[in-house]
């Protein structure tokens, strides 16, 4: 397979000299960030697509070997930057699996709420962007207005709107406040109206349906064989959702459904995401009314979270724990072992393969990026379709280049 534009052009000069080579990206409004496709066209039909990635490679996994378990959470914000909270939850879920920490019930509920709000905000952007890319601009504005509400919730929760870095080993940065809970309640009340509006705008919209139905077909067998996960796999009929299959955090306590479709085309992927937002909202509504009382961080015995100021100033254990955690080369007791733990991130299975070596820095922090795996299916999905379908397929796979290249 040719890699560069020059190779592809040289191929085209041979027997297939009627083929035309088009460079899509690295800067293109529909690639959303920086990724490049080399398309071979027969008229307007795509004969082959060659993805060329790495434009945003920034060595996140190498950084993971030099930043400690709390510092690295800021880097996970920058992976899938349209739902940073979900990455934070995924990272510390993996770290806590390695360290063997059992969270407090209150922390589990808070993390469930933020993970589901992150899913809603991710799905709003990805469905909004597919609408935008195929020409439904109004739809995008409806979606983005509600994302703004979720930013407000996150801002009152942790002070940051975009790169939240909210979780900590064994807990979260701050406890949830009544103001935040009021905002979440307002959102839970208002949001269903927006989903209704969004569905009315697109579900039976002739242009949108024509451009997404039967485009980018992914069969169930291909989805499994190609390691797909999340909404992409579920739209192809793979009923796999880690929230149900291996319940983590507080998901066992809530009533929700796994949304699947069997069509496997772009419309199905859009539709599954829309349906998942309703289910996520159900989880948020149940969780926010049932947050257990009690401490949000694990106790002093675990020696992982910074103790409260009262404990630091008034007890010797608190003072010692505080200094141990803050000083270099002290801190966590990490086993010399390897674990893999994953969560159901908005985009699919987001997991970290962690190798601990006894120090408070991971020996290896491998991220399993769903975008990377989904993008590998792209040439097969687009082959035989027209040039204008590229944006529909890219949008429906929800490729986030920062997570793709890391």
């Amino acid at each position, binding site marked *: 397979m040719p*890699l560069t534009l020059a190779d592809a052009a040289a191929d085209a000069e041979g027997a297939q000299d009627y083929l035309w080579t088009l460079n899509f990206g690295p800067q293109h409004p529909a690639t959303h960030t920086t990724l490049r496709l080399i398309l071979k066209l027969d008229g307007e039909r795509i004969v082959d697509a060659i993805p060329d990635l790495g434009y945003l490679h920034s060595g996140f996994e*190498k950084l993971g070997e030099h930043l400690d378990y709390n510092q690295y959470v800021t880097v996970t914000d920058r992976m899938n930057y349209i739902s940073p909270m979900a990455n934070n939850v995924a990272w510390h879920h993996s770290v806590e699996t390695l360290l063997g920490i059992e969270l407090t019930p209150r922390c589990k509920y808070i993390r469930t709420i933020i993970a589901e709000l992150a899913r809603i905000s991710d799905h709003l952007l990805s469905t909004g962007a597919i609408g935008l890319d195929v020409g439904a601009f109004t739809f995008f504005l409806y979606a983005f207005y509600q994302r703004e509400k979720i930013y407000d919730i996150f801002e009152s929760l942790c002070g940051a709107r975009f790169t939240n870095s909210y979780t900590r080993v064994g807990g979260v940065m701050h406890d949830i406040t009544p103001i935040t809970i009021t905002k979440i309640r307002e959102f839970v009340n208002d949001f269903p109206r927006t989903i209704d509006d969004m569905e009315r705008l697109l579900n039976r919209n002739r242009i949108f349906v024509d451009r997404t139905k039967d485009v980018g077909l992914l069969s169930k067998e291909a989805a499994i064989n190609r*390691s797909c996960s999340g909404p992409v796999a579920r739209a192809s009929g793979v009923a796999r959702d880690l929230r149900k299959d291996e319940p983590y955090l507080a998901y066992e306590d809530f009533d929700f459904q796994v949304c699947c479709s069997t069509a496997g085309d772009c419309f199905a992927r859009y539709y599954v995401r829309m349906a998942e937002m309703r289910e996520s909202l159900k989880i948020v509504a149940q969780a926010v009314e049932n947050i257990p009382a009690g401490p949000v961080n694990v106790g002093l015995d675990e020696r992982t979270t910074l103790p409260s100021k009262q404990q630091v100033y008034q007890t010797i254990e608190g003072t010692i724990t505080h200094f141990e955690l803050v000083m270099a080369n002290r801190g966590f007791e990490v086993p010399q072992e390897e674990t893999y733990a994953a969560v159901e991130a908005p985009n699919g299975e987001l997991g970290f393969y962690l190798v601990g*070596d006894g120090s408070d820095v991971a020996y*290896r922090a491998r991220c399993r990026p769903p975008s990377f795996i989904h993008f*590998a299916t792209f040439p097969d999905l687009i082959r035989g379709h027209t040039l204008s379908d590229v944006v529909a397929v890219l949008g429906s796979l929800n490729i986030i280049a920062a997570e793709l290249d890391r």
Partner: protein
Amino acid sequence: MAVRPEVIAALESQFAGIAPSEFRGQTRVTVPAAQLLDVLTTLKQTHDFDLLVDVTCVDYLNYRDATNRFGVAYLLANTTTAERLTIRVMLDEPNPAVSSVVSLWEGANWLEREVWDMFGIHFEGHPDLRRILLPDEFTAHPLRKDYPLQGRGERHNFPVLTRGEG
């Protein structure tokens, strides 16, 4: 979810030299490199581990008590029973190589390319083993432990183009 003990028992009776271990409810099986493809084929076809979740590698250069330089990990999952199993292969320098599993799972294609790119593990029988994230001109494998975090990088390997040449 942990793996049924029957699966591990069946693997142990069928293949020699495999070493299962468990940590925090996760089952890992270390397999000799020569038997990797057979073990994975058995797991996929007989025991329904139909999903290849990830392929990754760890460089154990300065790792305490490590006997091998590289460990390649294959994370498998069963989409029906939600079991998970990690298969590990230990490799050594100078020519770390293992057979490719693209014939079993199409999804391994890019994952193996990334491991080749970052660690220089050669996957025998891979249809298209090229660098994926780094440019082709790159010579090092940066996730190896002997590659420094900081420094002037690889820029001396790339020619400087003037506006006229570009």
